């Protein structure tokens, strides 16, 4: 967490639409100057949460505090937040300059002053010279920048972005991601970014809140979420994951001995309360932490035999689907090009050895 702590404080926030709980008792704090993402599939409540921050939906219960001021009876036009809408919401009856200058009206600036600010913004979003154009003369990416400029010109304390890159093609999206991150860091404003694209969230954010069915599943830095997901749902949502059933046969000093369905007997550090002797849990391993070899290597502490069923060549890496005894679904192994001499492995039904380091094992509560 960077900057001041608890700049935005969301306490026990809920929003119900009739019987549907769009947002269910969310607790969240966001620091000043942080790039914070709300990540989840459609319908998880992330957009509703964002709209409550902006003031467009009234919470059913709970509190929102921005800079220690309660937003309970503050209308949207008085909040210190500004929003970049998913469809950009560019005013069709105004040109780009007037769109960007729209929010300056309340400040009653002189014509010269507001022109200066607009020029500044146009340059910031690299749209200098586009000032006289209208909405229907702009491409999607250009409209997005106008929406950004329009919001930023007011120097909000918090910028809310509702899936701003969703409508752009992949290449443009990646370019804009880099620009957005750079912009945020140079301006030092808190960005709250809603997306369903986990790669996007992981790339851009200081911290991510993974949401599902109105609740937050895990709130942490991207690296933490990736390597130490706290539940099967989170683990499954981010990246690819192998899940293996296991039973705890022994527990001693924070160290557990597990009997797994297909990886044999393994040991792993275990501090979580759900790891009790006799309990059934789930072991999770990332595909890139599994290594393939022809023979069992003497240094490998953990290894198991398997047979390659299918291989998918993805250019810079390959995915191998390895079937092992004790398990119906094959395990997924991701190998970087050059890591293994793939030539030897491209035949079906090749017997192989899978190995992994101790630290790669993640213990999760059974679902």
């Amino acid at each position, binding site marked *: 967490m960077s900057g001041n702590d608890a700049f935005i404080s969301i306490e026990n926030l809920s929003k119900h*639409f009739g019987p549907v709980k769009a947002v269910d008792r969310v607790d969240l704090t966001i620091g000043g100057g942080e790039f914070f993402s709300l990540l989840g599939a459609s319908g998880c409540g992330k957009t509703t949460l964002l*709209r409550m921050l902006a*003031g*467009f*939906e*009234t919470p*059913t219960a709970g509190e929102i505090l921005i800079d220690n001021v309660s937003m309970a009876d503050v*209308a*949207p036009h008085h909040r210190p937040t500004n929003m970049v809408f998913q469809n950009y919401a560019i005013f069709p009856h105004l040109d780009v300059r007037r769109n960007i200058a729209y929010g300056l009206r309340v400040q009653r600036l002189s014509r010269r002053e507001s022109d200066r600010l607009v020029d500044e913004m146009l340059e910031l979003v690299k749209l200098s010279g586009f000032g006289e154009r209208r909405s229907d003369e702009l491409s999607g990416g250009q409209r997005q920048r106008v929406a950004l400029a329009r919001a930023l010109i007011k120097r909000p304390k918090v910028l809310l972005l509702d899936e701003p890159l969703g409508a752009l093609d992949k290449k443009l999206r990646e370019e804009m991601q880099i620009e957005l991150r750079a912009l945020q860091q140079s301006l030092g404003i808190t960005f709250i970014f809603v997306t369903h694209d986990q790669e996007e969230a992981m790339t851009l954010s200081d911290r991510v809140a993974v949401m599902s069915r109105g609740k937050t599943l895990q709130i942490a830095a991207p690296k933490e979420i990736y390597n130490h997901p706290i539940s099967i749902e989170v683990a499954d949502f981010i990246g690819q994951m192998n899940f293996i059933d296991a039973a705890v046969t022994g527990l001693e000093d924070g160290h557990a001995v597990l009997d797994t369905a297909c990886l044999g007997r393994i040991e792993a550090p275990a501090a979580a309360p759900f790891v009790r002797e006799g309990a059934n849990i789930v072991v999770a391993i990332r595909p890139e932490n599994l290594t393939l070899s022809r023979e069992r290597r003497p240094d490998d502490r953990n290894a198991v035999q398997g047979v390659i069923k299918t291989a998918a060549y993805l250019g810079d890496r390959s995915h191998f689907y390895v079937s092992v005894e004790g398990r119906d679904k094959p395990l997924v192994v991701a190998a970087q090009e050059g890591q293994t001499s793939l030539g030897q492995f491209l035949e079906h039904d090749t017997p192989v050895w899978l190995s992994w380091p101790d630290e790669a094992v993640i213990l999760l509560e059974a679902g």
Partner: protein
Amino acid sequence: MNDAPYIERLNRPLRSYAILFLAFLYIPVLFLPLFSFNDSIYIAFPFKEFTTKWYAQMLALEPMHAALMNSIQVGAATAVFSTILGVFGAKAVTRYRIPGRTPVVFTIMLPLVIPGIIMGVALLILISRLGIPLSLYTVTLGHVLICVPFSMATLMARFEGFDRSMEEAAADLGDNAFWTFWRVTFPIVFPGIFASLLLTFTVSFDEFIMAFFLSGTDPTLPIYIWSQLRFPQKLPSVLALSSVVLVVSFVVVFLSQWLRVRGVAQIPGEGR
């Protein structure tokens, strides 16, 4: 009202205004049925006794029957012809890329905006120069003219809302133009056709000004009502007649609008 988003939250003064507006829109018309039950030939407060004798009197009037029949005949003929023309027109304009589409549609819609007296008078001149006598046929012609725009508007919405690919599928499966129309297009468009028939019938039934200029010796019902307006004794039975006409046309038009919009939502692949 916590559920509605901020932008669309409840606005009490505006709601009161809306209700007042509707009241103001409907109440004046409700005076007619109100006084048709009043036992007095003067339309004034205070209310005297309640009676249905004016209705009985109205039902007995021979000329009224004749005028009613005339209106029904003209209305039915107008409905059929203008709907047929509307179907052709709507299909042509929505299904084919024709050059000059906008001017053509604009021209067909013109009768909606041109004052009735102009069209009545112009048509009267043409007909009399051609030596055609004025009759219910000439009235029907005038009514078809003003009803075609209504029919086209109703049907254009219908045709536009339904996916071309269904007709293409029918053709692909072996139907020629006629069968495609009969087995695919017609059933789907039918609610619109029905709505158009109802609407054009009602418009024709209630229409006064063109009928006034174009009719011969046989009056339509509105013309009959107009002629009775100068006789105070006849006034209450005119009220009774008007009330019946109003109620019937309200119901019929409500039905036609309901059908028109409801059917569109049911077309597969069509939103809103």
